[in-house]
């Protein structure tokens, strides 16, 4: 069959049998999703705000090179001014510098914890979704078990138990970071796992997966090439929401004093330090609170936009 020639289609087809597709440039489903996302105004605006926020915390130290621990009792508890745009705290430390530094940690924790949650969730969900029988049952049982755990007390307990251990292994800041990321991510993968499993169960019955099996594709090829790419939409949406949830969780931990060491500012720990001075220095609590609020709400709005853009019904 080496010399394939076109079948005699023209016998019954004076015009080309196939009309050219509508558009001139091919658009992949991801490009289509991006096009739909761009129409979601709130999500796009949120994306811009979030990007500004990220740019601020990454580039901030170069533009505002003020030390975060420069104590100046002469300028303590000051409101916003040219010298200190967001005011100072009870030790006269510059709040803008501290929030920039804290924002780096908070956002990094959020992203890293999301990655942990998504990776664990996808692996567990994919394993459960591809293997029928007891493996699936056991993994789902594990997922349900984790869902039944009371998160906050467990979070506090784990932090309390392992904090010193991690500090010895990875240093003060690194140890806290890894521990927080692992604990938050490790307690938030269940939704993703369930989602991925449900997607896998429905996708593996799809005819295009059957077609790939009929071509002789290996199981790995089926998962990586055919099932997973089509299951990713909802995972991305869930992952986005997870970033927001992880930021809140980290702030909560820091607020309760179980996050990073107290001399390292994060949005949550700045808020904790501020809580005793609410009536004399409200700005101190207002700015970190606003930062958390802004980050979380823009991420959630983006999640909404992504949900509409990646709606699996529109792709499949």
């Amino acid at each position, binding site marked *: 069959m080496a010399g394939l020639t076109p*079948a005699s*289609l023209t016998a019954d087809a004076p015009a080309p049998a196939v009309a050219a597709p*509508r558009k001139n440039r091919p658009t992949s489903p991801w490009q289509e999703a991006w096009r739909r996302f761009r129409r979601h105004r709130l999500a796009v605006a949120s994306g811009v705000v979030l990007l500004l926020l990220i740019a601020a915390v990454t580039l901030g130290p170069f533009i505002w090179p003020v030390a975060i621990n420069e104590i100046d009792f002469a300028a303590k508890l000051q409101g916003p001014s040219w010298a200190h745009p967001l005011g100072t705290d009870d030790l006269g430390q510059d709040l803008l510098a501290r929030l920039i530094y804290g924002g780096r940690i908070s956002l990094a924790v959020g992203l890293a914890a999301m990655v942990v949650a998504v990776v664990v969730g996808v692996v567990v969900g994919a394993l459960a979704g591809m293997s029928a029988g007891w493996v699936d049952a056991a993994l789902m049982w594990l997922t349900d078990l984790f869902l039944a755990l009371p998160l906050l007390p467990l979070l506090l307990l784990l932090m309390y138990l392992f904090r010193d251990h991690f500090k010895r292994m990875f240093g003060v800041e690194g140890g806290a970071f890894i521990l927080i990321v692992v604990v938050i991510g490790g307690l938030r993968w269940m939704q993703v796992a369930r989602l991925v499993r449900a997607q896998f169960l429905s996708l593996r019955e799809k*005819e295009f997966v059957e077609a*790939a099996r009929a*071509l002789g*594709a290996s199981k790995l090829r089926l998962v990586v*090439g055919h099932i997973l790419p089509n299951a990713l939409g909802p995972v991305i949406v869930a992952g986005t929401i997870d970033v927001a949830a992880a930021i809140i969780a980290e702030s909560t931990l820091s607020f309760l004093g179980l996050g990073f060491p107290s001399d390292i500012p994060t949005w949550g720990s700045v808020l904790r330090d501020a809580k005793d001075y609410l009536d004399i220095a409200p700005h101190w609590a207002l700015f970190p609170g606003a930062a958390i609020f802004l980050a979380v709400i823009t991420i959630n709005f983006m999640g909404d936009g992504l949900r509409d853009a990646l709606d699996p019904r529109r*792709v499949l």
Partner: protein
Amino acid sequence: MSNMAANKDDALLSVTDLRKHFAVKGGVLSRVVDKVHAVDGVSFDIAAGETLGLVGESGCGKSTTGRCILRLIEPSSGGIWFKGADVTKMDATALRSLRRDMQIIFQDPYASLNPRLTVGAIVGEALTIHNLVKSRRAHEERVVQLLETVGLQADHMRRFPHEFSGGQRQRIGIARALAVEPKLIVCDEPVSALDVSIQAQVINLLEDLQEQFGLTYLFIAHDLSVVEHISTRIAVMYLGRVVEIAPARDLYDTPLHPYSEALLSAVPIPDPTVKRQRIMLQGDVPNPINPPSGCHFHTRCPIAKPDCATRVPELRESRPGHWVSCHYRG
């Protein structure tokens, strides 16, 4: 029971007493409470180069039969002999090489193409899986060749399935199946989801390809007029069993089984001047979980007699090449 092809030696594929039972789970402990007899002892042969039509109403097991032949569904029992080897006993390696000989075309042109892949990637996947081409250039050339074979154009390669209409998508699915140069293609309702004018395009294409590459088809469909048009021989299924096998024209001119007869008379004819006596079947197809005893069709059969409920009719050759499973016909 496998001597139904014109000549046994010609048989490319021979199915003997194929059964597939799906477990129905229920109760708190999800134990197997019942079995769906989707395919309940099906036998037929397909000769090289012919088209065997497999017709029947929804739930008769025709699609399950097609998927069992490719081992996309594991059969419960029975034999599937392809070029002298039993497909049901093949290990992973043998199955992999079987995939180069047997392919499938699906009904739904939307669900059967991966929306995330380009048309080129879809059509070319088999080339990668089986290492059929040496270089990237050869890969691309082959994909273009396949696309042109099914009436698409080279520049369609970089597009995605959602940019194509149903008929074009079905062509892509056909090109994918052709990539491995198969001998047998199971066509599972390949035109049912298409518009009338597009159906004709795809049927003509399938016929052209058969002639060009000497393909053998198992053509599964519920539309009897389409099956009659494309098939050499036709097998009629009812509730997991074959009730009649005959050369296409024979079946339409002189159907022997009362079910085939009713099925044929129910097909609307696009000609208002033709007036026919219609055999109206009463009721619905019974539940395949508990199919009727004896002859599965006896509950709806216009000529049923008491013993039809107890004795299972054998498929026997009533006339040369015309097999029927009924106690009182043929």
